[in-house]
C-alpha cells in the first residue's frame, strides 16, 4: 500500500517545522535516558574495574579490625600451610599538592606481588613494559620513588623524571604504567611507603591466596579480620549501594519524562491525521492499511529520533560521567571514570527506546481511531473535542491511579523499588487530572486574558480548553517536568537545611585540626593542646570503615564527656543524658545504622575487636548525615579497649565559653598546628566545605532537572506548533474577519503562556507532594535517614520563572510562523 504510506510520510515533509520539533522531542527523551544510563554504567564499571585491578588473584585478605598490622605477622603467616602466596600491602591515600585530590598509594613488595597482582608487579619490573632496569632499582632503593599510572600522568601533564607534588612532599616519578581502572594509582615500594606514612614496622594488610580457608580462619580469626574476595566485593558494592540506587532513580525519572514526551509526540501524530484516516477509510482503505501507515510514520519518528537521541545521549553521558566521578570522589574515594567508548549499540538502544515509547504512545489513540466508524473520523478534529463526561471519567481514573500510588508508597517498606513505582504511578495519576484542571483554570484565565488581549485573549483561553485533547497532554508533560523541578528543589533544600541543623548540633568545635582523610594527628600534639589555657575541651575523633553483618559501616570514637558538654546532638529519643552510658562503655548509633539493622535503644550489638566479637549496648540513636552506611559511635576509651588503635584522625577544639579572648586562643592553636604541618579549619570553614561537597553530590540531580525542563519545553513547543498548523483555516477566517497579525500573534503567545501558567499551578501541588514522597519515602528507604521538610520559596520561584521563560521560548517559533505566514492565509479547506 505504497500511496497510503506515501500520503502519510509526505505530511512530515510538508510540515517540516512541526516534524523537526517532534523529532527533537523524541531525541531529547531518548538522549536523557541513554545519557543517564551510560554514565551510571561507566561510573559503576570503573569502580568495579578498580576493585578487580587492585585485588589481582588474591582470594582473601587479613588485617587488624582497626588500624595497621605489625609486619612480623608476615613471617608467621608465610609459614601457614593454608597459604599458597601472600603479599603485604600498604593501602593509603595521599593528597596532591595541598588542596588537590586524594590519590590511592599502594605500597607493594614487587617480588611477592608477582603471584598476587602480576599485572601490577609486571608494571614495575618488566622490561617488556618498557620499564628499564634502572627505573626498577630506583623504585626499590630510592626513597619517595614512585610509579604513577598513565591516565594520572596525562591528567597532571607530568612524565618520568618529574616530581609529583603532594602534601607529604615531592615524590619522584621513576616510571609510568598502564592502569585499566578509573581510579588513579601511585605504586611505591612497601618499605618506602612505611617511611612516607610513618608506619615503621607496620603494614595495612596482607593479600592472600589460600588453599584452605576454614583451616586458616581457625588459626587466625582471633584478633584479625579475614575477608574473602566475595565478602570484599560485597562490602565495596554495598558501599556504593545508595549511590547506585540514586542513579537508578534518576535514570528511571529520565525514562519517565522521556517516554511521556515521546508518548505526547506519537499521540499528536495520530490525532493530527484523524481526518486523513477517515477519508482513506471512506475510499476503501482497510483498518490494517491505515494501521500500517500510522505505524510506519510513528516508527520513522521512533527510528530517526531514537538514533539522534542515542547519539546525543552518548555525548551527554560524557558530560554526566565527569559529574558522577566527581560525586563518587566527594563521597567515597577518588575515581576518575572514563566515559564508555562509542558503540553502535547506543544507536540501537536509542532506536529501540524511541520506537518502543512511540508505539506505546501512539497505540491507544490508534486503536481508538481504527475502531471508530469512518463517518466519525472523517470529521477530523472538530469531533475530537473532549466532552465533560470524558474529562470526568479520565479524572476519576486519575484519582484511582493516585489511590493506587498511595498504596504502593505505603508498601514501600517491602523494597525501595515499590516506592519508585508508587512515585511514578502518582505522577501518572496527577497527569490524568490535567483535563479537569483545565476546565477549572481556564474560565478565570479567560477573564484575565480578556483584560490583556481583549477578544484575542478570550480566544486564546478558549482554545486551550477547546483543544484539550492536545493541550492537556502538553500541559501534563510540562507539569511533570516542573513538579520534578519543585520536588527535587525542595528535597535538596530540605536536605541542605537538615545538614546545616546537623552541623550546628554536632560540629560545634571552634577549630578543627586535620579533618582530611590523609593526615593523622600525633598523640603528643593532643597532649600539647590540652595544656593551652582557655581550651574547654578537645574531642579526639577517629573513624574507621568496617563491616557489620557483612555490610559496610563506620565506627567512630569520640570523647563523650567533651561532646556532652559542648555538642547538641539531635537524638531520636531522649536528650544529652544519653551520653552518660557512653562514658562507661555503651555506644550510640546513627539513625541509618538503626534502620538498616533494625536496632533499637537497649539492644546489644556485637563488634569484632582485637579480642574477637565484643558485646556493646546501644544507649541511644542519633540523627546523622555523615554516612548513609551507618555509624557506631563510642567513647575513645571503649574504642582503644576494643581495637587497641590509638590513631587520631582529627581534633575538635572547644574554647571555654567563659574566655574573653577566644580568637587569640584559636590563633594560638592554628600557629601550633602549622608548626606541625597539620591543616586546620574553623567551624565556618568546615561547615562550608561540607556544604560544598553536598552541592557537588547533587550536580547530577541538578543536571537531571535541567534535562527534564528541556524535554518539557519541546513538549509545549510541539503542542503550540501543532495547534498553529491545525488552525490554518481558522486563522484564515480570523483574517477575513479583520484580525491583525498582532492579534493572531497575541492568541498564539497567550496560549503558550496560559499552558505554562496552568502547568505551573498544577506543579505547585504535585511538586510539593513529590517532595514529601522523595523525603519521606524514597530517601528514607534509600539512605535510612530522616530529612526534615523545610519550606523554601526558592524552588517555587525558580520553577515559576522556568515555566514562564520556557513557555515564552516555546512560543517564539510559532510566533515567527504567524508573522511569516498569516498575512497570506486564506480560508481554504485543505
Amino acid at each position: 500500500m505504497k500511496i497510503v504510506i506515501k500520503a502519510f510520510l509526505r505530511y512530515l515533509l510538508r510540515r517540516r517545522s512541526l516534524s523537526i520539533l517532534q523529532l527533537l522531542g523524541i531525541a531529547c527523551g531518548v538522549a536523557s535516558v541513554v545519557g543517564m544510563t551510560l554514565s551510571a554504567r561507566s561510573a559503576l564499571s570503573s569502580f568495579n574495574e578498580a576493585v578487580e585491578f587492585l585485588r589481582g588473584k588474591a582470594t582473601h585478605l587479613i588485617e587488624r579490625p582497626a588500624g595497621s598490622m605489625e609486619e612480623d605477622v608476615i613471617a608467621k603467616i608465610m609459614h601457614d600451610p593454608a597459604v599458597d602466596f601472600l603479599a603485604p600491602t600498604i593501602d593509603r591515600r595521599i593528597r596532591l599538592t595541598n588542596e588537590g585530590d586524594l590519590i590511592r598509594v599502594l605500597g607493594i613488595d614487587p617480588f611477592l606481588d608477582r603471584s598476587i597482582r602480576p599485572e601490577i608487579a609486571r608494571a614495575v619490573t618488566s622490561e617488556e613494559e618498557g620499564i628499564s632496569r634502572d627505573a626498577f632499582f630506583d623504585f626499590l632503593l630510592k626513597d619517595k620513588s614512585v610509579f604513577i599510572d598513565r591516565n594520572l600522568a596525562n591528567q597532571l601533564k607530568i612524565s618520568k623524571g618529574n616530581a609529583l607534588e603532594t602534601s607529604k612532599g615531592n615524590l619522584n616519578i621513576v616510571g609510568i604504567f598502564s592502569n585499566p581502572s578509573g581510579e588513579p594509582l601511585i605504586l611505591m615500594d612497601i618499605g618506602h611507603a612505611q617511611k612516607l606514612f610513618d608506619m615503621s614496622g607496620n603494614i595495612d594488610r596482607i593479600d592472600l591466596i589460600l588453599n584452605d580457608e576454614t583451616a586458616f580462619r581457625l588459626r587466625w580469626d582471633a584478633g584479625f579480620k579475614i575477608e574473602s574476595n566475595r565478602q570484599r566485593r560485597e562490602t565495596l558494592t554495598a558501599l556504593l549501594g545508595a549511590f547506585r540506587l540514586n542513579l537508578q532513580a534518576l535514570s528511571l525519572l529520565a525514562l519517565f519524562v522521556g517516554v511521556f514526551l515521546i508518548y505526547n509526540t506519537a499521540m499528536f501524530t495520530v490525532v493530527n491525521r484523524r481526518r486523513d484516516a477517515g477519508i482513506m477509510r471512506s475510499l476503501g482503505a482497510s483498518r490494517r492499511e491505515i494501521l500500517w501507515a500510522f505505524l510506519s510514520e510513528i516508527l520513522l519518528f521512533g527510528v530517526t529520533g531514537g538514533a539522534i537521541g542515542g547519539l546525543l545521549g552518548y555525548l551527554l553521558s560524557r558530560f554526566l560521567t565527569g559529574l558522577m566521578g566527581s560525586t563518587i570522589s566527594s563521597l567515597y574515594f577518588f575515581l576518575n571514570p572514563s566515559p564508555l567508548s562509542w558503540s553502535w549499540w547506543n544507536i540501537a538502544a536509542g532506536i529501540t527506546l524511541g520506537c518502543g515509547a512511540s508505539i506505546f504512545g501512539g497505540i491507544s489513540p490508534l486503536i481508538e481511531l481504527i475502531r471508530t466508524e469512518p463517518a466519525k473520523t472523517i470529521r477530523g478534529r472538530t469531533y475530537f473535542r473532549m466532552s465533560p463526561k470524558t474529562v470526568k471519567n479520565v479524572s476519576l481514573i486519575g484519582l484511582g491511579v493516585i489511590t493506587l500510588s498511595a498504596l504502593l508508597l505505603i508498601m514501600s517498606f517491602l523494597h525501595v523499588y515499590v516506592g519508585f513505582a508508587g512515585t511514578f504511578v502518582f505522577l501518572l495519576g496527577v497527569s490524568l487530572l490535567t483535563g479537569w484542571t483545565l476546565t477549572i483554570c481556564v474560565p478565570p484565565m479567560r477573564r484575565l486574558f480578556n483584560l490583556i488581549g481583549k477578544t484575542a485573549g478570550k480566544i486564546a483561553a478558549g482554545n486551550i480548553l477547546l483543544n484539550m485533547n492536545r493541550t492537556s497532554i502538553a500541559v501534563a508533560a510540562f507539569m511533570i517536568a516542573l513538579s520534578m523541578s519543585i520536588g527535587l528543589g525542595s528535597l535538596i533544600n530540605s536536605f541542605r537545611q537538615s545538614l546545616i541543623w546537623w552541623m550546628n548540633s554536632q560540629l560545634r568545635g571552634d577549630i578543627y585540626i586535620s579533618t582530611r582523610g590523609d593526615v593523622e594527628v600525633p598523640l603528643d600534639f593532643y597532649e600539647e593542646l590540652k595544656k593551652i589555657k582557655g581550651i574547654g575541651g578537645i574531642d579526639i575523633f577517629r573513624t574507621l570503615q568496617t563491616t557489620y553483618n557483612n555490610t559496610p559501616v563506620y565506627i567512630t570514637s569520640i570523647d563523650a564527656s567533651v561532646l556532652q558538654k559542648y555538642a547538641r546532638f539531635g537524638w531520636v529519643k531522649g536528650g544529652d543524658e544519653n551520653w552518660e552510658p557512653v562514658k562507661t562503655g555503651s555506644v550510640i548509633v546513627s539513625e541509618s545504622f538503626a534502620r538498616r539493622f533494625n536496632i533499637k535503644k537497649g539492644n546489644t550489638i556485637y563488634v569484632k575487636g582485637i579480642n574477637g566479637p565484643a558485646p556493646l549496648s546501644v544507649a541511644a540513636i542519633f540523627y546523622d548525615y555523615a554516612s548513609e552506611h551507618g555509624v557506631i559511635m563510642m567513647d575513645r576509651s571503649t574504642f582503644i579497649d576494643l581495637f587497641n588503635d590509638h590513631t587520631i584522625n582529627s581534633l575538635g577544639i572547644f574554647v571555654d565559653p567563659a574566655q574573653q579572648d577566644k580568637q587569640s586562643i584559636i590563633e594560638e592553636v592554628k600557629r601550633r598546628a602549622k608548626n606541625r604541618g597539620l591543616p586546620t579549619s574553623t567551624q565556618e570553614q568546615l561547615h562550608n566545605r561540607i556544604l560544598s561537597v553536598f552541592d557537588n553530590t547533587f550536580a547530577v540531580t541538578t543536571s537531571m532537572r535541567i534535562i527534564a525542563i528541556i524535554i518539557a519545553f519541546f513538549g509545549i513547543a510541539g503542542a503550540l506548533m501543532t495547534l498553529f498548523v491545525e488552525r490554518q483555516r481558522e486563522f484564515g477566517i480570523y483574517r477575513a474577519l479583520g484580525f491583525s497579525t498582532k492579534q493572531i500573534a497575541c492568541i498564539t503567545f497567550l496560549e503558550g503562556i496560559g499552558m505554562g501558567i496552568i502547568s505551573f499551578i498544577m506543579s505547585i501541588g504535585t511538586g510539593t507532594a513529590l517532595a514529601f514522597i522523595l523525603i519521606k519515602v524514597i530517601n528514607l528507604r534509600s539512605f535510612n535517614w530522616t530529612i526534615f521538610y523545610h519550606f523554601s520559596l526558592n524552588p517555587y520561584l525558580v520553577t515559576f520563572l522556568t515555566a514562564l521563560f520556557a513557555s515564552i521560548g516555546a512560543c517564539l517559533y510559532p510566533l515567527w510562523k504567524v508573522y511569516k505566514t498569516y498575512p497570506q492565509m486564506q480560508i481554504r479547506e485543505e
Partner: protein
Amino acid sequence: MKPIIRIVDLWKRYNSDEQDGIALRGANLEVMPGDIIALFGKSGSGKTTLLNLIAGLDKPTHGLIEIEGKNIETMNENGRTELRRNRIGFIFQFFNLLPTLTAFENVLFSLELVGKPDKNAVLEALHAVNLHNKEHRYPHELSGGEQQRVAIARAIVKKPAIILADEPTGNLDTNTGTQILELLVSQCHTLNTTLVMVSHAINTCQFANRFMKMTDGILVEEASCEGIDF
C-alpha cells in the same frame, strides 16, 4: 431487475454527547442500476447519515441495507471495506482530497486500493474531468471546482456500481456546480453507474430521474422537484 440498493425500515439514533437525537426514522428505498437520484432536505434532516449508512461508514440502529443483494449488516469490517473499495465511489462536499498527494496520486490511490494501479486509467479519468494538464498539482494548488473534479475522477476511475455524492456542488458557484453535475452524470450514464446525490441546489433536478425528500429523518419520494423547498 433487482435493486442495487435496498433499504428497509432504517433507523439511526445518535446517543453521543455531541448529537443527541434520531437522524433516520424508518427510511425505505429501492434504487435500480443506472438510477440518478437527487436527495433533498434541510441541514440536519439525515441526508448525510443515509449516505454514510449506505456506504458502510456508519452502523444503523435498526433496519436493513442491501447493496447488490447483500445485507451489509451481515458483513464484517473487511467485507464493508471491500464493498467501498470495489463497488462504491464517494464524493464529498468539501472534496476531501488527501492534501499530501497530487491530483494524479489522489486518483491513483483509488486504483491502488482495488489492486490495479493503472496509470493510463488515471490519466484518462483526469482527462474526462478536463484536468489533463494539472495532474501533478497538489490540492491546495487547485481551485474548488478543480478539486471537486479530482474527487469525481477519483470516484469514477475504478468504475464503481454506485457513486454516493454528498452535496458535490455545495461548495461551488452555480456555473461550476452545473458543469460538475453535467460531468458527473454523463460519466454515470457512460458507465451505467447508479448515482445517489445529496443536494440543496435546484439545478440538480435537471440531472436526476428520481427525487427524494428527507424531512426530520423521514424519507419520501417525490414525483418531481416541484414540491420541494430549496
